[in-house]
């Protein structure tokens, strides 16, 4: 079995299984905890309006912008670059097609009722490079900024490594770099993405899901009081 066969076969199955099981375990373990009914008389009875915090908190208030702009800009850059690369690169779309066909017996369009266009490879390459640059910038910031250095732990650095790895290996594979066989580079790229999937439920990457729950919960509580969102 070649590295690529391993990456496309058992490693994929195991990593997806761990991802799904781990994700469910962690989210169920938190979301199914009890919650107390707030008996205070609400200032704003339409507390659901507090859910707007999910969107509002996507950008800091002007009062806070000065000290946070770097983190916000770099954060958005690597998140968007990563997601666009993941979902709009032709080989990725073909990969998803094959996975979905294998799992559900139908392609993306059959499953979702629509398909989305891929972006030109040059654009994806550019975005990947920008993402890697932004990730390097946030790493340097994490190491040099006294606040971030103090509060950082293993999870922060390991999650960073596993996030940058698929981008870096993807670019290496695309460039056929270093005289290594393309199949080996592709295998390494797929394995790096699988490593990200395996780690995803256990570390800080879970914020991809909990961010909406945390913002929503705070929004509901604060809106009830009429407190500042």
């Amino acid at each position, binding site marked *: 079995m070649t590295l690529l066969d391993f990456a496309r076969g058992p490693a994929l199955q195991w990593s997806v299984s761990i991802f799904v099981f781990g994700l469910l375990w*962690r989210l169920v373990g938190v*979301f199914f*905890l009890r919650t107390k009914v707030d008996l205070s008389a609400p200032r704003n009875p339409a507390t659901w309006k507090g859910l707007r915090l999910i969107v509002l908190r*996507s950008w800091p208030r002007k009062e806070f912008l000065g000290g946070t702009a770097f*983190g916000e800009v770099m954060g958005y850059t690597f998140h968007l670059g990563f997601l666009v690369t993941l979902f709009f690169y032709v080989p990725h779309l073909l990969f998803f097609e094959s996975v979905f066909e294998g799992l559900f017996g139908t392609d993306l369009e059959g499953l979702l009722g629509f398909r989305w266009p891929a972006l030109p490879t040059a654009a994806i390459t550019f975005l990947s490079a920008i993402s890697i640059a932004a990730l390097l910038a946030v790493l340097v910031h994490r190491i040099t900024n006294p606040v971030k250095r103090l509060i950082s732990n*293993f999870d922060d650095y390991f999650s960073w490594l596993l996030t940058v790895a698929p981008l870096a290996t993807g670019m290496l594979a695309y460039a056929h770099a270093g005289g290594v066989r393309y199949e080996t580079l592709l295998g390494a790229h797929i394995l790096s993405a699988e490593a990200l999937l395996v780690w995803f439920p*256990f570390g800080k990457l879970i914020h991809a899901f909990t961010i909406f729950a*945390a913002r929503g919960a705070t*929004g509901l509580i604060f809106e009830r009081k009429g407190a*500042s969102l």
Partner: protein
Amino acid sequence: MSTPGQDIDQKFPLELNEPRFSVKDPKIRFDMQGDLSDEQRVAVAMRNFVKDFGRTAAIYMESCIHCGMCAEACHFHEVTQDPRYTPIWKLEPFKQAYKREYGPFALFFRMLNLKPKVTHEQLAEWQHLLYDSCTVCGRCSLMCPMGIDIATLISQARHGMFHAGLVPHELYAVAERAKREGSPLGATPKVFEDRIDWLADDHEIDIPLDKDKADVLCTMSSIEIMKYPDSVVATARVMNHLGVDWTFRTDGYEATNFGLLSGNAAWQKQMTMKLIDAAVACGAKTLILPECGHAYQALRWMGANMYGKPLPFRVLHMAEFLAENIRDKRLRVKKTGKSVTFHDPCQVARRGGAIEAPREVLAALGMELREMFPTKGTNWCCGGGGGVVAIHRADNLRHKVFQIKMDQIEKTGAEIPVTSCANCRQTFDDGQAHFKWDKTMHSLLELVADNLVEDDA
């Protein structure tokens, strides 16, 4: 045999006659209570931290990405640039314990020792971060891009610290005194009654006390009773002006809640229930909270949850009551024409939602409001909330933080600063004395009482 609380009270008596209440000799400290072993303290701290842990708190604990942006919102970090004052770092031992002992992957974290055990030394060190350098003002909660309400988690961590016997001396002493005597500052029912008699005589004003039935129950903070008695008189003036059927009651007058500030939920409930029982006993339709920030949070937003059912009366902060009556044209005030700036008490405005009410009152007084920057929900805290003003060893740090407020106020160019929280006012008075500043903080209520339009005027 005396109780531990009385021992503390006798060994380390409180200073009640100075402008800022605290202990008489702050050099002799007693920052560790009880006789638990180090291991027991850690276990008890963590057990009580997660005791009321529900879904929301757990989601918060799972969501932090260590971006460090909350540091930008914290006044203690702002003035020192000390990374230890990063709000989320103030919770570090509790985050550590949550992941290791209670989270969905606790077993995984323990087996691989990804999170080391919290130590007693760590908790003792964190006392400074959780009490001396956090006013629970919640500014960080507005900054967090994940939406984590860090201030609420700090309060839960204080629960753990209290039960572990790791509360700063002064805060424990006043909380214990409040639990034992009904007031943290010696404003016992007898003292309160005597003060009411004295103030009624001195100011020739009717101040009803212990009426069997009344539509409105007024409450005070002990800071006002002991340090700012003019607020008691101002309350009576406004109520009498409005002609409402009102009363103070000796069985429920103290609105401060040091159970909440120190982290003892049982004491918090005890203080809250006194107010609720008094209001129910006199059939009050409205309970008015004084100019006190945390009192508003304790009763307005937490009272019903302590009671176990919705409160059978309305709860209003004094500023809300004044604004409501100005809106309804029942309360008539003279125009003063002065320029003012308003300091938003964190627990009333940012975390309580009563942001516009005081501004409506100032507008009715014909005052030119010059807003600080930032203001309203993002206004800087005075630095004395959350019990910090009581802690002597935090004075230097608190005074540094206070410079932010002085700077904000000076930049407005307003003639007078106004607020609606006696604890903020006390912090301002202390800061004014320390820096020999020429600005004196004013009470919104007293401004209104001084400018009432009487019918026969």
